């Protein structure tokens, strides 16, 4: 574990140096991202002009959910964006060989090799927005709720990582799919709305089987005052379970790997 932390620190430093070399379109990227998050919130403003609540969710709660979704999304992209988009290339070009010979877990290496730091400049304003929303609508909240919120986001990250990573391993079987990274991306979009308003079939599905409720819905509920300890415990178990499954899938995929080069 310590060794992996040391390696990750080296990855981080290396990414920082790389990032400083290519900073041309950096600000445009930050601004566009923030505008999209803002637009999503404005959209809900217009919808809530017509109705007071949607499936028990008030406008302030939806705003916290939206801020949480974008915050989650940016943290996820910060950690995995570059790495995930390279997996198809690594597998199909045979460059994966080089990684597999290294004395660390291959899954760890290809998932976390690069950090995309520009996302930090989107994460910060989102975090400020979130704090501001909490302050005007939901203050005071207990420390335990804030801690549980952070902890649940972490569980959500692990869950989404595991599913997303598993979809990427499809290229071991199917060969070159240049946009494979968007496959789970389109499923995961459903987490931008409250999972508990999605109806009798999807609601249990999104809570227990494909637990995307842990991206924004459950963390938001916890932060806005409804803490459900059963669900928090379930989140931890689900994260551990799916991470383990993703590891199994990775090992299975490697057995299918035939180096492409030479």
């Amino acid at each position, binding site marked *: 574990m310590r060794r992996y932390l040391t390696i990750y620190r080296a990855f981080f430093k290396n990414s920082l140096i790389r990032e400083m070399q290519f900073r*041309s*379109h950096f600000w*445009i*990227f930050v601004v*566009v991202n923030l*505008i*999209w998050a803002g*637009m999503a919130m*404005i*959209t809900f403003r*217009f*919808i809530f*002009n*017509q*109705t007071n609540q*949607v*499936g028990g969710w008030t406008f302030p709660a939806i705003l916290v959910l939206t801020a949480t979704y974008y915050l989650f999304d940016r943290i996820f992209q910060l950690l995995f964006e570059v790495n995930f988009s390279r997996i198809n290339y690594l597998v199909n070009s045979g460059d994966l060989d080089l990684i597999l010979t290294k004395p660390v877990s291959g899954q760890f290496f290809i998932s976390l090799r690069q950090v995309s730091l520009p996302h930090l400049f989107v994460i910060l304003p989102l975090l400020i927005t979130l704090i501001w929303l909490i302050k005007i609508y939901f203050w005071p909240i207990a420390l335990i709720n804030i801690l549980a919120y952070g902890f649940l986001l972490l569980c959500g990250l692990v869950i989404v990582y595991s599913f997303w990573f598993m979809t990427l391993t499809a290229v071991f079987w*199917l060969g*070159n*799919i*240049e*946009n*494979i990274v*968007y*496959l789970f*991306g*389109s*499923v995961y*979009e*459903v987490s*931008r*709305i*409250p999972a508990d*308003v*999605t*109806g009798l079939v*999807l609601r249990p599905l999104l809570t227990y089987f494909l637990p995307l409720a842990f991206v924004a819905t459950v963390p938001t509920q916890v932060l806005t005052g409804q803490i459900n300890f059963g669900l928090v415990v379930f989140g931890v178990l689900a994260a551990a379970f799916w991470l383990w499954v993703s590891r199994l899938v990775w090992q299975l995929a490697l057995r299918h790997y035939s180096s492409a080069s030479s």
Partner: protein
Amino acid sequence: MSKYWLLFKQQLEYMLAYRATGLIWFLADTTSHLVFILFWLAAFQGKSAIAGFSLREMILYYLGAMFVSAIITPHPQHWLADTIKNGQFSAYFLLRPLSVLGDRLVSQIAWRLFRFVIMIPTLLLLWLFLSGFISGFSVSGQQLLWLILSLTLAFLGQMLLKTCLGLAAIWFEEIGWMTAFWDLLMALLGGWFFPITLLPQAMQVASLWLPFRYWFYFPLSIFLGKLSSAEVFQGLIIQLFWLVVAVLIYRVVLKRGIRAYSAYGG
């Protein structure tokens, strides 16, 4: 003409070889509207209308929106910008008897055709799932005719202006921000996010002065039968106006672009 036919066949073969890629782009283009449908189902609970739309109309609006954004909305700009950036533009267009627009049009039509084949069963399936909410809906023959006309105008207008966006790579190193800005306007003032009637009055008025709503919201309104004949006629005239504007812009951009273009690399 036969050279374009050949290009078309070549594109189709390419797509058949990369079916999975096509399928994933299709998914990425359609799921956001599905998520909206889920949200509206919850928002309507007991309400008869929101912003002039009944639940049935709202669901149909988003099913239509899926169709329009996956089939009608072209994306010629990315490939074009890449080709300009890596210096292949001159070899591809300037040395061959191909028009930029003709070539991109053929490629886009081939892609749309592929998506159309996936779209039909997808929509049928959704229709089946949602039949409880949308039963009894029908479109008249005349509506269908107008719809096809308006979708064609929407496709061509966007095709021309987005080709210009791609050609802008001749002057700007990065065009990502321009497409992002375009998408934002389309989402908010075009009706991609939600029906324009949900916008505040001032923004609704603003949307009348831009082409976006005529490329998205207007055809969908024809589909839903929310317009009188006079309104349809007026809308089609405005679409035609924007098409003429697009043609003029395209011609200027292409002419100046070819003069300003300098190939980098090989």
